[in-house]
């Protein structure tokens, strides 16, 4: 195959998935653009955004790949009702790892910003936002990944090719949306307890 044919084939194959995740990315951006008040109120939250979004992608990309390998190997049954033990363990592991990475991100961001003498919200606030956001978006992503991978598999589609685009598209949207919900929840709670600073 010549350069021109290779380039055209690669372009045509990639464009639909990239366009879909572009739509998801813009949607995530709108939510981020609409949460300027929360970003100002919780100093250091913007620093956490890439780490939290990437954690969703890394953890649930890996979870989706594991489930689809399990389906191929016949280790996992493509029915949610089956309450498969392996599936439950993989979902719990994804949630636990996502929460651990989110907490580490919040603690590291707090330490670095403190060392840089930059303004930063109290540690419990940052960790609280990271944990609430991780729990909510993790639960939502588990449901989406399992449902879409199972539905795709039962319709005879290769789940491997579904996982990547689904996780990148929904991961960003859910990631930012639940970050907003988490920031509002923690701010309301902190206000109720008397605020800080």
């Amino acid at each position: 195959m010549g350069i021109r044919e290779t380039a055209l084939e690669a372009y045509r194959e990639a464009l639909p998935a990239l366009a879909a995740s572009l739509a998801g990315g813009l949607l995530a951006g709108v939510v981020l653009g609409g949460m300027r008040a929360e970003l100002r109120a919780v100093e250091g939250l913007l620093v956490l955004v890439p780490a939290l979004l990437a954690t969703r992608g890394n953890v649930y990309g890996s979870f989706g790949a594991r489930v689809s390998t399990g389906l191929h190997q016949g280790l996992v049954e493509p029915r949610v009702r089956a309450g498969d033990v392996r599936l439950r363990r993989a979902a719990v592991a994804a949630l636990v790892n996502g929460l651990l990475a989110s907490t580490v991100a919040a603690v590291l961001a707090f330490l670095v910003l403190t060392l840089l003498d930059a303004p930063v919200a109290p540690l419990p606030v940052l960790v609280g936002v990271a944990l609430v956001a991780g729990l909510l978006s993790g639960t939502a992503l588990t449901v989406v990944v399992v449902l879409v991978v199972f539905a795709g598999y039962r319709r005879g589609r290769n789940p491997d090719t579904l996982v990547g685009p689904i996780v990148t598209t929904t991961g960003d949207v859910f990631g930012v949306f639940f970050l907003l919900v988490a920031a509002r929840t923690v701010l309301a709670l902190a206000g109720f307890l008397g605020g800080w600073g």
Partner: protein
Amino acid sequence: MATDWTVRAITRAMLPVLLVLTAVELGSGLVLGAFEDRLLASPSLLVLVPVTIGTAGNLGSVLAARLSTAFHLGTLSFDARDDELVGNAVATVALAVTLFPVIGLGAWTLASLLGATTLSPGTVLVIALASGVTLAVLAVVVTLVATYAAYRLSLDPDDVVIPVVTNVCDVLGVVVLFAAVLVFA
């Protein structure tokens, strides 16, 4: 090779890499934090952040997946005259040229629905396109280096290259966007 389906085994396989990637992403967060005032002042730029870093990562991961398949099939050689290599690199830049004007105008339109915009649609388009083309070129370089390194270290590019490329492109996405804002806005 395959991990057991227990929480402990999955965590042991996943957590170390996850923590390294988290630290890398924190770097891109610190760059974002450095121009937080600028971003909060112009909603269009804030809308651009997730879609720019996401698309950069996706361009890199698509290229990485294709090169790694070509590598496994034995049709890839690391030579500047290799058709497979050059064709895929050209497609990556062409995809950026197609997608980033849509991203720029989309971000401006959505930001204008959120409230008053401070930048003109033309400025946001130029920032998006310049960032996108720069990122596509960087994504090609990072993917080639990572695929070549995996090949030299006899690692399976499927396991290593995609996470590395996606996360490095995330960081570069923020840095390049920051540079484009400084130059054009």
